[in-house]
């Protein structure tokens, strides 16, 4: 009960912060953070709650970004519909990649997703509709219910709504019977099989859901920035989302959000200061997290909090 209420309080604080944030911080930056936070949450659904490490998740972010960009710019669809089309496209791609990848487990799964995403990356590089390395530029933001989304504030509240909605969906999934089965698979796959669950089907479903949500993040990102580029689909971005989740705390509700916030602001700040050492710093964070900080910022904080109030940790 106690922890339940504190979670509720945390939600409330978070929501209030989100609503007043644009008057304090640059709205486009927060929107970027939200997109990556959603991306990381989607990834966390797979890694943290199903135990599947996909090393090619950027490809879903990227494909949705391109599809939405194309839908808004060339087909001139309304904004929301464009985002939906992109999300659906990413989910579809997730189904294809997922059905191949779940044939292997553990490390192989990671390698297969990485290799397949590299293949899709090459496709985006060569295809003409993506604009190759120039990127798909000049995507219109459009309007929503008569509101002009070119205005940062209007768009901001749309992005917040999308984020909150998706976040709620992820929470519901985790706490649903479906989510419980996923956790069972993570903890002990053979046992889940022996209990009669069609593990492959559940894994695939989780993969498609995660890919779709990652796609939603990518689609929203395109609307925010008005472009989609190859970076979105590159394996470096896949590495980044792993880092965000790991740093924030995988398998925790807020971990990915915290991780994404830290990494995005780090990238934004470091841009002027250290120049070429950005990659090294990311690498060091990775190593430190794996060696000494495996529960991530949120996980470690919770553990610390529990120790302080004298609760036994599991």
């Amino acid at each position, binding site marked *: 009960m106690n922890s339940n209420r504190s979670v509720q309080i945390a939600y409330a604080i978070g929501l209030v912060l989100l609503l007043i944030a644009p008057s304090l911080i*640059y709205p486009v*930056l927060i929107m970027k953070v939200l997109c990556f936070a959603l991306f990381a949450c989607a990834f966390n659904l797979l890694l943290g709650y199903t135990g599947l490490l996909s090393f090619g998740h950027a490809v879903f972010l990227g494909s949705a970004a391109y599809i939405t960009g194309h839908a808004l710019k060339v087909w001139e669809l309304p904004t929301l519909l464009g985002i939906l089309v992109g999300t659906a496209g990413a989910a579809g791609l997730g189904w294809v990649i997922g059905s191949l990848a779940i044939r292997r487990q553990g490390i192989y799964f990671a390698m297969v997703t990485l290799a397949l995403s590299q293949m899709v990356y*090459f496709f985006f590089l060569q295809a003409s509709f993506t604009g190759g*390395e*120039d990127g798909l*530029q000049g995507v219109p933001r459009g309007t929503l219910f008569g509101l002009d989304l070119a205005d940062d504030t209007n768009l901001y509240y749309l992005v917040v709504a999308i984020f909150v909605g998706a976040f709620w969906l992820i929470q519901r999934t985790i706490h649903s019977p479906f989510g419980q089965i996923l956790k069972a698979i993570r903890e002990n796959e053979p046992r889940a099989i022996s209990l009669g669950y069609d593990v492959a089907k559940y894994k695939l479903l989780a993969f498609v859901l995660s890919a779709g949500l990652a796609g939603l993040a990518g689609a929203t990102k395109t609307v925010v920035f008005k472009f989609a580029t190859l970076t979105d689909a590159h394996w470096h971005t896949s590495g980044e989302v792993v880092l965000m989740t790991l740093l924030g705390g995988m398998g925790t509700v807020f971990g990915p959000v915290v991780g994404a916030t830290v990494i995005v602001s780090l990238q934004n700040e470091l841009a002027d200061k250290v120049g070429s050492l950005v990659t090294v710093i990311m690498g060091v964070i990775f190593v430190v997290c794996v060696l000494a900080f495996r529960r991530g910022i949120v996980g470690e904080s919770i553990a610390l909090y529990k120790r302080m109030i004298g609760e036994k940790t599991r």
Partner: protein
Amino acid sequence: MKRKLLALTLSALLLPAAGSALAQAKGKISGDVVKIGVLTDMSGVYSDLGGQGSVVAAQMAIDDFKAKYKPTFKIELVSADHQNKADVGSNKIREWYDTQGVDMVTDVLNSAVALAVAKVTTEKNKIMLNAGAASTRITNEDCAPNNVVHYVYDTYALANGPGKAVTKLGKDTWFLLTADYAFGHSLEKDTTNAVIANGGKVVGNVRHPLNASDFSSFLLQAQASKAKVVGLANAGGDTINSIKAANEFGLTKNQTLVGLLTTVVDIHALGLQTTQGMMFTEGFYWNLNPETREWSRRFFAKHKKMPNMLPAGAYSAVTHYLKAVQATGTDDTATVMKKMKDTPINDFFAKNGKIRDDGRMVHDMLLVEVKKPSESKEPWDYYNIKQVIPGDQAFQPMAASRCPAVLAAKKK
């Protein structure tokens, strides 16, 4: 202590007033500071082209300008690494324009970032003098002639120059090795057009993936084609590896290699032994005349590398901009832009350079041939200048422009 504080407050109150009074007399400069941003790739694949070198060059331009023209306004430089990510670049540039009062941005390597930054620049009505990115889209489909100038080079100039000049030298059959993405495709298209227009023939081509580690297979196909010229429509590591493999397979004995985006930095990385006899177009060569040598040696003292066309172009762009601000006494975008377009550019980088209506800065390009090791007299002495390609022939003619603003003007 108190008195000091009072004095400080007083001067803080008075100074801006005095400053703005001065500025008022000569027009307006926002915040009394002209702020120049260098947005570049400092860590990624393009960092050797521009990167820190462009920052050094921009700083030199500011220092030189201050020493020579004693401006009444302050000039500041900010720089950032966009990490080749369009979203990082576009975020940074928004922040610069909105909160830091940046007036002009230069370098902006990487076409994806440049196009994104150009959009923000237009939206915020600031100025971008692009010295780094290659895409012709910047002055065509995505042109914004009121805000964006493409200052140094583009894929058309790089392809057209050698395509025309080398073909005219009698090397009229070409084989093209193309990087299989938009950049390579546009180089391929422009080269092919130039070669055919000058009576040559493209006898074959092969498209290779980006970052292919092994080029021997493609070069064997080039060799088998018996073309007199093998054109490398690729960049960076791909070009370097192609040249290396070409050398190893003895292709350079009978065929001429033409790089379509090669700079002095690549030649330095590969060495003359490997690159001798290669031909390509570059917008600048440090060892061209006393003026370029003087500037380049100063640059070398600071950066430990000789400049290619990017830092040199960034220096020229910053200087041209500051002169326009000085002359008009304002940093208002429209006024400064008009002044820059009205004034021809004459410095060590460009002779009679001119900014056209589509935002393209036209200036002479150089067709160079890489020296034999025995001909090189000193480190970085790498080129024989085969031909100076006049600006109006080097760049895409206005008649072929796909820039909406230009097309609209034509209709009227």
